[in-house]
C-alpha cells in the first residue's frame, strides 16, 4: 500500500511540474456531430492521441509553448492548427468532409456488430447511399456491380444473372452471396427492399469479415444497413421522386435469318418433298405459311400466280418490325418516397412510405408499396429498446407477348410471321397444328375457334403475382458492468405469394385444351375439358424466425483495448407451396370436375391425359449456431482479431460431425502511420492488414443418403403413390469450405486527395461439389455430384479515390479494379469425354487441373473445304470431316483448343464526379476483360427441324472461293447433326469478351439553403444502361448478352427526379 501511495505521490509531483495540458473536441463541419477516432498528432513529436466517443482528445506532458496539432480522419480533410500554450480554453476543431458528394462510410457493419473502419483487420467494401443513388430503379442489388469493388454480375450461365464477390468460390454449389438486412439473412424476395431505405451497404469480402456467418458465407456476404432514427434530432422530412423512361429494346440485336433467305430455303425443301410427310400426316403437324401456300398451289386451290404473289409479299417482311411496331413500348417507371424522422432525449423514430410503379416494355406492371417504421426507446442510459416493422406489398401483372413469348413451333417462328395486317388489325398465326386442319374446322360448331392471335391473346391469358411481406424485429441492448453489453435480437418474417394465371375462355390455351379433348358422337359434342377458362393458382407461404443472444464487450485499459462479441442464434425457415388448376372456370367462380386418371381420345389424333397441374411442397431449413469474435488493439497501432463459428443444420442426412464443422479466422493489422518512427508526411495514413480463415458453403439440395421423392401424381395403373430416387447414398458428402488469405494496405495521402486500398487474396475452395461423369451402368446417372474438386483463385482488389481538382470546380474519381483468376487444383476424375467440354449453351465446369473453373473449349477448326464448303476439323492430328468421331469419342480433351476463362478475370468500375457550385455530374463506367464467349451461328439441322435460323445463313459458303471470306459452312442437304454440332462448337465461333460499358450519367442541381424550411432540394437527370463503348469482338455482340436463345441488352433509360429534405 505504501508503495502505491509513493508512486502516486511521485506521479503527482511529476504532473505538478508539468508541462502543459491540451484538451479539445473535434466535430464534423457537416452536421456538427462529434467525431470519434480522429487521430491527433503533435508535430515534431511521436505523440498521438485519438478522440473518444464524444469527440474529445487530451494530451498531457507537452513541453513546448507553441505546438502544431495535426488532425486526421478517414473521409475528412486533414487539418493543422497551431496553438499557444498554456491553453485558455478547450480547443474546438471542426473537420470538413473530404469528398462531399461521395460521403464516405466510416463504419462497417457485419450484421453482428458495427465497427469503425479503422478498427478492422478484414476486407470490407462499403457503398454509401449517395453513391448507390447515382443510379435509379426499384431494384437495389443490380446497382452494386457498377459501384462496388470486387463485384461482378455474371451473365454467362443459365438462369438469372448472378452477383459474385471475388469470383467463384464454388463449382456446383450455390453461388449467390448471403444477403443480410440489418441483423439477419433476408429470406424474402430481394425486390422488396426499397433502395431509399438503405443507409449503406457493406460487402464482406475476406474470410475474417465473413466467417462470422459460417456455413453460408463462402460466397461473400452483403450487409444492407437500413436508416435508423437518432436521438436529439429535430423532425425532418425527406421526399424523393423520379420518372424513368426506358427505350424499346433493340430487336435488331436478334440475329434473325432474313425472310427472303428463309422462304427460298422453304421453297427448295418443298420441291425436295421434305414437308410431304408432315403435309400428309393424320396428326396435322404445324406447317409454315409458305409451305401451306405452296401446298395450296400444288393442289390447285390457288393459282401459281396467286401463290408467287403472296410469297413475294412475305419476303419483304421482318417480324422484328412487327414486334417493334405493335408490341414493344417505352417503359415508364415512377418512384415516390416520403420519409420522416426525429428524436427526443429518450425516443427516436424513423418512418417511410415508398410507392413504385413500373410499366415495362411489354406493358407488364409492377407496383410496390413499402411502409416502414423504426423506433428506439432509451428509458435510461444503458438500455436501448428498438422495434422495426417493414411491410411490403407488391403486385405484378403480365403484359403483351414479346418476341420470346410467341411460338409457332418449338419456341420459334418464321421470320416473316405477321402479327397484324396493313391496318394494324390482329392476325392469327399458325401454332401447334397445320393451318389446313384449323381451317377445316372453321365451320364445325362443335369446335371453338382454334386460331391463335398473338396480339390480343395476352388480354385473355393473364398472370398476376401478389406478394405481401412483413418483417418485424425487436431488439434489446442492455449495458451490464465491466464494459459488457447484452443484446437480444428477434426477427420474424412472413411472406405470402399469391399467384394466379387465368386463361379465360377466349384464350388460346383454354380453347386449345377444350378442342383437343372434345368428342363428337353423332354430331353431338361432348366436352371432356369443359368450356370455360383455366385457372392456375400457385401460392407460397414463407415463415422465418431468427433469434440471437449476444454479449458485447468493449473496454480499454490504457493502451489496450478489446472489443469482443459472443453469442448463439437459432434460425428456422419454413415454406409451403400449393399449386392448383381449375378447368371450366367462369367469372362467377364456378369450376368443373375433370377426369385426370383416364386417357382420353384427343384431336386431331391420339389420346392424352388431361394435365392435373396440382402439387404441394413443404420445406424447412433450420440452423443452430454459436459464434464469437474478438479484436485486441494495442495503442491504436497493432491489432489482432479472431473469430469462430459453428453451425448445425437439419439438412438431410449430413453426418453429425459435419453438422458442427467450425469456421474460424485470424487477422492482424498494423497502423504504421501511428508509429513514432513513421515520418512519411505526404502519406499520413498507412495501415497494413492481413487475415486468414475459413467459411463454408452449403447446398440444401445435397444429401448424403438415398432418398426418394414422391411424385404429385398417383399411378395410372393402381392409383397408388409413385416415387423416384432423388438422391443417392453418398456417405462422403461434406460441406464445401473456402479458405482465404487476405493481405491489404490502406493509405491516404495528404489532404485526402488520394486514398485507397490495395488487397491481395488467395482463396482455396475445398471439398467442392463437382460433377463426376459416371459409368452409367450404375443406373443412376451419367454424372454424379460429389466433393471432388479443389480450386484456388487469387486476385487483387484495388480501390482508389482521388480528388483530381479541388477548387470551386471539383473532380473526383473512384476506381475499382479487380483481378481474379481461378483454376482447378484437383478434380478426382480419371477420364472424361471431350464433347462434354464443348457445351454450346453454357460453358461447362472444366474440371481439369490447372485450367480455369469455367473455361471455353472448342473443337479445332481447319477451315472450310474449298471444294464443298463443309466445315473441317481434326481427328488424330489430320484434317477430317468424320464428324461422328470428331464430336464423339475421337476427340480427347487435349485435342480441344482451350481459349481461357468464361468469366471475367479483370474487371471493375470507374466513377467520375464533377461539381461546380451547385451542379454535379457523375459518369459511371464498368469494364470486364480477360475472358471469352462463344457466339451463336447457324445450325442447319435445327433450322429444318425446329425452324430456328440465324443471320449467319446469308454469309454461308455457296461457291468455291467463298471460303476466303466466310467461315459459315455450306447449307448441305441432307443435314448431319454431328456436323452442325462440330461447327457450333468449333474455335471459329469463340470471341474475346472484353468490353467497356457506359453504365450511367447523372446530372444534378442542388438548390442549397433556398429557404429556411428546405434543407436541400435537388433536381437530377440520369441516363442508364447506355451501352458498350468498346468491345473486343468485331460483330457488335454484347458479351453480357450472348447466350443462345435471344437475350436482349437492357434498353437505355432516362430519368428525371427530385430529392429534397425539409
Amino acid at each position, binding site marked *: 500500500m505504501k508503495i502505491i501511495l509513493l508512486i502516486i505521490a511521485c506521479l503527482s509531483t511529476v504532473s505538478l511540474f508539468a508541462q502543459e495540458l491540451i484538451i479539445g473536441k473535434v466535430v464534423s463541419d457537416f452536421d456538427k456531430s462529434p467525431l470519434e477516432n480522429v487521430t491527433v498528432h503533435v508535430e515534431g513529436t511521436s505523440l498521438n492521441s485519438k478522440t473518444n466517443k464524444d469527440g474529445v482528445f487530451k494530451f498531457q506532458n507537452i513541453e513546448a509553448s507553441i505546438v502544431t496539432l495535426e488532425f486526421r480522419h478517414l473521409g475528412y480533410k486533414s487539418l493543422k492548427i497551431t496553438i499557444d500554450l498554456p491553453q485558455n480554453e478547450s480547443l474546438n476543431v471542426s473537420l470538413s468532409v473530404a469528398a462531399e458528394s461521395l460521403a464516405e462510410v466510416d463504419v462497417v457493419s457485419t450484421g453482428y456488430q458495427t465497427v469503425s473502419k479503422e478498427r478492422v483487420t478484414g476486407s470490407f467494401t462499403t457503398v454509401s447511399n449517395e453513391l448507390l443513388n447515382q443510379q435509379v430503379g426499384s431494384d437495389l442489388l443490380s446497382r452494386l456491380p457498377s459501384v462496388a469493388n470486387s463485384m461482378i454480375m455474371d451473365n454467362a450461365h443459365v438462369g438469372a444473372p448472378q452477383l459474385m464477390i471475388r469470383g467463384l468460390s464454388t463449382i456446383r454449389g450455390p453461388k449467390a452471396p448471403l444477403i443480410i438486412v440489418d441483423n439477419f439473412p433476408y429470406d424474402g424476395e430481394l425486390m422488396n427492399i426499397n433502395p431509399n431505405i438503405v443507409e449503406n451497404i457493406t460487402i464482406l469480402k475476406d474470410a475474417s469479415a465473413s466467417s462470422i456467418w459460417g456455413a453460408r458465407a463462402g460466397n461473400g456476404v452483403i450487409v444492407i444497413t437500413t436508416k435508423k432514427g437518432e436521438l436529439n434530432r429535430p423532425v425532418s422530412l425527406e421526399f424523393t421522386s423520379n420518372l424513368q423512361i426506358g427505350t424499346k429494346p433493340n430487336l435488331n440485336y436478334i440475329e434473325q435469318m432474313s425472310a427472303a433467305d428463309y422462304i427460298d430455303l422453304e421453297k427448295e425443301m418443298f420441291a425436295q418433298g*421434305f414437308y410431304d410427310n408432315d403435309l400428309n400426316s393424320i396428326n396435322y403437324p404445324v406447317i409454315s405459311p409458305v409451305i401451306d401456300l405452296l401446298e395450296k398451289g400444288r393442289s390447285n386451290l390457288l393459282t401459281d400466280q396467286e401463290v408467287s404473289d403472296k410469297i413475294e409479299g412475305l419476303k419483304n417482311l421482318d417480324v422484328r418490325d412487327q414486334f417493334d411496331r405493335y408490341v414493344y413500348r417505352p417503359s415508364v417507371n415512377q418512384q415516390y418516397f416520403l420519409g420522416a424522422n426525429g428524436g427526443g432525449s429518450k425516443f427516436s423514430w424513423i418512418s417511410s412510405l415508398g410507392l413504385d410503379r413500373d410499366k415495362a416494355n411489354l406493358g407488364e406492371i409492377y407496383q410496390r408499396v413499402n411502409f416502414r417504421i423504426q423506433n428506439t426507446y432509451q428509458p435510461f442510459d444503458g438500455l436501448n429498446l428498438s422495434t422495426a416493422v417493414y411491410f411490403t406489398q407488391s403486385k405484378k401483372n403480365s403484359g403483351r407477348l414479346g418476341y420470346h413469348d410467341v411460338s409457332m413451333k418449338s419456341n420459334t417462328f418464321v421470320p416473316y410471321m405477321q402479327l397484324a395486317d396493313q391496318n394494324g388489325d390482329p392476325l392469327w398465326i399458325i401454332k401447334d397444328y397445320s393451318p389446313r386442319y384449323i381451317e377445316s374446322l372453321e365451320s364445325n360448331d362443335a369446335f371453338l375457334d382454334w386460331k391463335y392471335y398473338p396480339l390480343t391473346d395476352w388480354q385473355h391469358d393473364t398472370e398476376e403475382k401478389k406478394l405481401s411481406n412483413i418483417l418485424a424485429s425487436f431488439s434489446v441492448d442492455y449495458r451490464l458492468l465491466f464494459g459488457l453489453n447484452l443484446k437480444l435480437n428477434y426477427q420474424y418474417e412472413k411472406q405470402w405469394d399469391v399467384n394466379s394465371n387465368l386463361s379465360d375462355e377466349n384464350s388460346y390455351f383454354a380453347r386449345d385444351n377444350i378442342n383437343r379433348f372434345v368428342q363428337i358422337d353423332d354430331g353431338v359434342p361432348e366436352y371432356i375439358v369443359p368450356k370455360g377458362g383455366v385457372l392456375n393458382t400457385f401460392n407460397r407461404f414463407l415463415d422465418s424466425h431468427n433469434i440471437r443472444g449476444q454479449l458485447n464487450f468493449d473496454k480499454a485499459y490504457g493502451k489496450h483495448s478489446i472489443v469482443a462479441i459472443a453469442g448463439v442464434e437459432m434460425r428456422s425457415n419454413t415454406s409451403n407451396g400449393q399449386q392448383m388448376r381449375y378447368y371450366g372456370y367462369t367469372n362467377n367462380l364456378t369450376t368443373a370436375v375433370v377426369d385426370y386418371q383416364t386417357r382420353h381420345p384427343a384431336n386431331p389424333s391420339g389420346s392424352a391425359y388431361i394435365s392435373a397441374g396440382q402439387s404441394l411442397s413443404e420445406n424447412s431449413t433450420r440452423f443452430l449456431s454459436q459464434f464469437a469474435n474478438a479484436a485486441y488493439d494495442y495503442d491504436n497501432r497493432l491489432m489482432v482479431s479472431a473469430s469462430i463459428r459453428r453451425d448445425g443444420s437439419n439438412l438431410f442426412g449430413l453426418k453429425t460431425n459435419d453438422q458442427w464443422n467450425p469456421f474460424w479466422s485470424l487477422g492482424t493489422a498494423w497502423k504504421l502511420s501511428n508509429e513514432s518512427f513513421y515520418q512519411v508526411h505526404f502519406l499520413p495514413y498507412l495501415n497494413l492488414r492481413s487475415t486468414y480463415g475459413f467459411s463454408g458453403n452449403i447446398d440444401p439440395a445435397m444429401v448424403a443418403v438415398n432418398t*426418394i421423392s414422391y411424385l404429385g401424381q398417383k399411378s395410372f395403373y393402381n392409383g397408388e403413390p409413385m416415387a423416384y430416387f432423388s438422391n443417392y447414398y453418398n456417405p462422403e458428402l461434406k460441406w464445401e469450405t473456402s479458405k482465404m488469405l487476405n493481405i491489404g494496405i490502406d493509405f491516404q495521402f495528404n489532404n485526402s486527395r488520394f486514398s485507397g486500398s490495395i488487397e491481395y487474396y488467395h482463396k482455396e475452395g475445398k471439398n467442392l461439389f463437382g460433377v463426376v461423369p*459416371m459409368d452409367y451402368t450404375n443406373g443412376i446417372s451419367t454424372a454424379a455430384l460429389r466433393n471432388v474438386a479443389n480450386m484456388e483463385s487469387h486476385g487483387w482488389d484495388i480501390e482508389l479515390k482521388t480528388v483530381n481538382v479541388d477548387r470551386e470546380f471539383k473532380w473526383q474519381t473512384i476506381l475499382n479494379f479487380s483481378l481474379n483468376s481461378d483454376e482447378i487444383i484437383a478434380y478426382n476424375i480419371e477420364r472424361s469425354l471431350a464433347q462434354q467440354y464443348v457445351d454450346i449453351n453454357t460453358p461447362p465446369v472444366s474440371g481439369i487441373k490447372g485450367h480455369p473453373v469455367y473455361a471455353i473449349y472448342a473443337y479445332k477448326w481447319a477451315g472450310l473445304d474449298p471444294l464443298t464448303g463443309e466445315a473441317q476439323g481434326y481427328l488424330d492430328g489430320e484434317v477430317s470431316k468424320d464428324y461422328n468421331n470428331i464430336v464423339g469419342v475421337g476427340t480427347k480433351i487435349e485435342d480441344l483448343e482451350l481459349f481461357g476463362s468464361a468469366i471475367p478475370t479483370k474487371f471493375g468500375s470507374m466513377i467520375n464526379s464533377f461539381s461546380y457550385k451547385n451542379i454535379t455530374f457523375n459518369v459511371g463506367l464498368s469494364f470486364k476483360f480477360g475472358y471469352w464467349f462463344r457466339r451463336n451461328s447457324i445450325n442447319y439441322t435445327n433450322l429444318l427441324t425446329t425452324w430456328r435460323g440465324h443471320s449467319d445463313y446469308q454469309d454461308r459458303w455457296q461457291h468455291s472461293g467463298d471460303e476466303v471470306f466466310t467461315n459459315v459452312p455450306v447449307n448441305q442437304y441432307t443435314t448431319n447433326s454431328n456436323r452442325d454440332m462440330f461447327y457450333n462448337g468449333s474455335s471459329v465461333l469463340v470471341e474475346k469478351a472484353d468490353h467497356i460499358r457506359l453504365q450511367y450519367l447523372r446530372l444534378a442541381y442542388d438548390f442549397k439553403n433556398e429557404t429556411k424550411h428546405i434543407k436541400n432540394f435537388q433536381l437530377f437527370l440520369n441516363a442508364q444502361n447506355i451501352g458498350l463503348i468498346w468491345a473486343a469482338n468485331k460483330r457488335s455482340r454484347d458479351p453480357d448478352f450472348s447466350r443462345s436463345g435471344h437475350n436482349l441488352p437492357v434498353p437505355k433509360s432516362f430519368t428525371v427526379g427530385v430529392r429534397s429534405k425539409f
Partner: protein
Amino acid sequence: MSCEKFLDERSDKKLSIPVTLEEFKALINNSNYINSDFIAAGEVSSDDYYLSDQVYNALQFEGEKRLYTWQSDNVTRPFGMMGDEWYNCYQAIYFCNSIIHGIEENGLSGPDADNLKGQALTLRAARFLDGLQVWSKAYNSQTADSDLGMVLRVDPDINQMSTRSSVQETYDLIIRDLSEAVGLLYENSPVQSLPGKDAAYGLLARAHLYMGDYENALQYTNKALSLTKAKVIDFNELDPSLTYPIPVENVVSREIVLTTTMYAATQLRVAYALITPELYSLYEDADLRKVIYFGDNGDGTYRFRGMHSGNSSKPSALTISELLLIRAECSVRLGMLEDGAEAINSLMENRWKAGEFVPYQFLDTESALEVVLQERRRELVMRGLRWVDIKRLNRDGHNIVLRRRVNGESYELLPNDLRYAIAIPETVIELSNIEQNPR
C-alpha cells in the same frame, strides 16, 4: 426443445429415406421408370417398316440415321440428349436392385414383401433379357460361354466396376432370378404394370425360346397360360374407324400379361414408320389385322396402329397371344403338331372375320413350323420381338437378309453379321472401359 430435435426436422417433406414396404412399393409403382423405355434399337433395326427419304433426312440426330442403316458404331443419340438406351435399361435395373436390397437390408418379410421382391426380380430379369437381345449375339450353345453378354448388376452399390459377362452367364442369371421370383410372387397381379407368377413364367418361356430350349419354353408357357387372367380380344368386336382400334381397359389392353413399353424412338413414330409392302402382303383380306393393325395413309403407304396401349406408345409387353405363339412353335418343334395347331387356331379365330377362318391342320413339322413362324410375324408387329426372331432364325439357317434403300443408296445386313449385336454407346464404353462388341 433440445438441439437435436430442432435439427431433426425434415428439410423437404417430399423426401424420405426408403425403409418401409410402402416406400419400396411407391418405387416399383413408378411406371415412368419401371415399365417404360424398354429398348427400341432392335425394332428400329428390323424389317417390318421403312422410312421415306424425307423422314430419314429430317432425323435430328446422326445416331438415329446410323442406327437405321445398321452402321457398326455411333448409333446412339449424343450423350445427354435423352434416349441413351443403355442408361434407360440400367436405370430400371437400379430401381429393382434398390428394392431387392432394401427389402433384405430392412428385414421386411411376409407375403407382401416376398411378392414385392419377386416383382423386382422379375422386372430386373426382363431388362437383362431385353438388353441381351440388342447388345449381344443370338444365343448359341457352342459359343455362349465366350460371347459377350450384359454387365450383370445385381447390387445397388454405385461404385462397382463394370465388366461384361458371357451370354450364358446372363441367361443363367435371368433364369435363376425368374425361378426365384416364381416362388415369391402371387399368382396374378391385380395390375398389368406389375408381374405375377404368370408374367415370370411367361418371361421364362421367352428366355428358353430364345435359347432354343423348346421343352422348357413349352412347359413355362403352359404354366403362364394356365395362370394368366389376360384374354384374347376378338377383333370382330373392334371398330376399325378409330385411330387406335384395340381397346384398353385400365391403361392397356386385356391381352397384356405384363406392361413394358419401348422407348419412343423417332424412327418408329406412327407418322414416320411405313409398313413394308412385304409385311403388308402377308395378310389375307379376311384377316382383320389387316385393317386393325394398319392405317391407310392414302398414298399407298400404311402406318402401324395396332398398339395395345390405346395410343402411339409401343408396348413390347408379354401378351397372351405371344404365349400362345410360343406354345404353338414349341409344340410343333417338339413334334406335337396337334397341340400346335390348336394353339394357333385358338388365336386365329379371334383375328379373322367370323366364320372365314379355316382352322390349320398340321401334317408335317416343317410346313407347320413355317406356318407358325409366319403367324408369329403377322401377329407380333412393332413389339420389339422381330429383331430377336430374325437373329435366332438366322442362327438356325433361315438366311434372312435385311435391305434398306436411302437416298438412292442400298444398305444390307447379312445373316449373323457382327452388327446384329448393336454397338454399345461409345460414351459408356469410354466411361466404364467395358468391352465393345466385336466389329
